């Protein structure tokens, strides 16, 4: 089997220059960690390419050597540092921190807000980010995620809860959503949400102001086999209710 010097030579022949020292995992995986500093060619493509790294990794694997390449992209790190500084300078009262990762020339940005941001502020942040990435570095803003503890149930989450308890009235559904760890702002918020879902034929309203999932949506929600099957959960919920 190749020693570290042999691995370095092999990678060098393939145009992959290693930064720092090779480190072997001391745990059960026996992986070898190799730091590689990547750069950009005039077309802004990564050098060495991911394909080149994958080929080298497969070649070494065929010799019984499992490597994990740890890529350091100094250029992206500089962009991220600049992005953080720009955002904290412009929106210091609203943003606590900013992170970025770049995949295929698209940036995914995570912002940690200090408070809930209104639409006007979100739009201003979005615009600033897009300008910073595009104008200075030619990178598109792929997605912007505001990490927050806001925890409203989505339509999908509401449908799952309705399916579980149907036919269900609003107070009971609200309790169920809260039990599942969601924040439901008010009964009125839930009523509006259910009305909107009813207009889209996702749920039906039954006698006594109770709700059930429409047939079309029961099919779309799907099911799984095994312990976590929603059908079994529903059966157990029905049995529990019957026993009361």
């Amino acid at each position, binding site marked *: 089997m190749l020693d570290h010097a042999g691995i370095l030579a092999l990678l060098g022949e393939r145009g992959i220059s290693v930064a720092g020292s090779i480190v072997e995992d001391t745990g059960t995986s026996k992986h070898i*960690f190799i730091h590689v500093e990547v750069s950009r060619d005039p077309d802004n493509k990564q050098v060495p390419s991911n394909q080149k790294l994958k080929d080298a990794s497969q070649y070494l694997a065929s010799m019984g050597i499992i490597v994990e390449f*740890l890529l350091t992209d100094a250029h992206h790190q500089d962009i991220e540092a600049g992005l953080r500084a720009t955002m904290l300078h412009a929106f210091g009262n609203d943003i606590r*921190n900013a992170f970025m990762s770049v995949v295929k020339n698209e940036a995914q940005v995570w912002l*940690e807000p200090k408070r809930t941001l209104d639409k006007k502020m979100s739009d201003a942040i979005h615009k600033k980010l897009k300008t910073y990435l595009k104008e200075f570095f030619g990178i598109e803003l792929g997605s912007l995620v505001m990490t927050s503890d806001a925890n409203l149930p989505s339509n*999908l989450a509401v449908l799952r809860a309705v399916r579980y308890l149907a036919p269900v009235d609003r107070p009971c559904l609200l309790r169920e959503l809260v039990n599942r760890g969601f924040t439901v702002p008010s009964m009125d918020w839930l009523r509006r949400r259910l009305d909107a879902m009813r207009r889209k034929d996702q749920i039906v309203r039954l006698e006594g102001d109770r709700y059930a999932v429409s047939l079309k949506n029961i099919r779309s929600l*799907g099911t799984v086999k095994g312990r976590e099957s929603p059908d079994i959960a529903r059966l157990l919920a029905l049995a529990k209710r019957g026993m009361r």
Partner: protein
Amino acid sequence: MEIVAQHLHQEAIHRTSPIERDLFGRSAFNRYYYSMFIEVRASLAMLRPEWSRLAHAAIPDLLKGKVKDELKRGRKRAEKMGDFDVVSLCESALSATEALAKLMEQGYATRVTADYYPDIPVDFLSANDFQLNTVSVKKAQAWPHRASAFLKTITSAWKQLNA
């Protein structure tokens, strides 16, 4: 754990003995990694209780495997239901999963270097900055916060799909 890492980080900067600077410096890397690891493992345990006792090296594989698969299935389900908010949430969570796996790999490799490779010295770049095997301590300092941002995105999507 993070305050311990920060204390060790500061000690490494303020000590004058090269041996002590190296020892405190590598320990700071170790604690920054553990601070991130503990948070990641606790969050994964909330997604699935059986993920509460994962070994270090298993976490990136789990993220790139089972967690991503589950999010992809959820995205498909949300697409079918026409819930595009959840589709978008799943897409962000998929990016976060990939980024977190890479972060954990880098953190783990650095922690192994810190603990088992005393022959690789901590390299002091300036009065306030040092690195270990090309990984800057400033980067390590951001690991827990970066992981936390990724975890919030993942758990938020997971909850909408599975709660």
